[in-house]
């Protein structure tokens, strides 16, 4: 079942912050976040396992609320290189394929 992402699109100025949300109607084992630039394959950012953990990757971090079946990706002090489409991918059982949300288009301007 496809997770729901919001917002659909975000435009930021360099240095601003953004939050992208991902929610599922099914119980989740893990949530993955990927960024895809135009014409390229998706690139892995991070994975969050059930247990309500939070992870960070430089100025990009994420949280996973297992009870609410929701995850959020936090981009702080955005850089031009952050531009792209962000997808969350979810799985209900470990080791199988991921179901991806529709994506959030992020544009960071100078």
């Amino acid at each position: 079942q496809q997770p729901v992402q919001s917002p659909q699109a975000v435009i930021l100025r360099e240095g601003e912050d953004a939050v992208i949300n991902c929610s599922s109607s099914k119980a989740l084992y893990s949530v993955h976040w990927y960024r895809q630039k135009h014409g390229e394959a998706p690139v892995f950012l991070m994975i969050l396992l059930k247990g309500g953990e939070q992870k960070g990757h430089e100025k990009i971090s994420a949280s996973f609320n297992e009870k609410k079946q929701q995850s959020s990706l936090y981009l702080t002090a955005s850089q031009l290189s952050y531009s792209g489409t962000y997808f969350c991918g979810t799985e209900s059982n470990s080791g199988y394929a991921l179901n991806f949300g529709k994506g959030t288009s992020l544009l960071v301007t100078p």
Partner: protein
Amino acid sequence: SAVISQKPSRDICQRGTSLTIQCQVDSQVTMMFWYRQQPGQSLTLIATANQGSEATYESGFVIDKFPISRPNLTFSTLTVSNMSPEDSSIYLCSLRLGGAGELFFGEGSRLTVL
């Protein structure tokens, strides 16, 4: 990490023809996944390919249209049969090492059907 070689990287095809996409991996993996990404859209799972068994197709995808082979643990092919313009998409093979962790993607095969 995994190195995935996918080809062709792009092709322009005529309506009614078929094209086979190849995916070669530098590691042995049990499950490989084939995704489709239509222009400006999300990634949609076509099927899961297990070595030594028939592929498992998602709702809306059938074996006659998207036959998959998985002859060994490092290779898989996806054929797009009897193509129509609606099949114009990027097709991506992917895998997870050790059955869990991140999903690695090939570079994708961009098909345009005229």
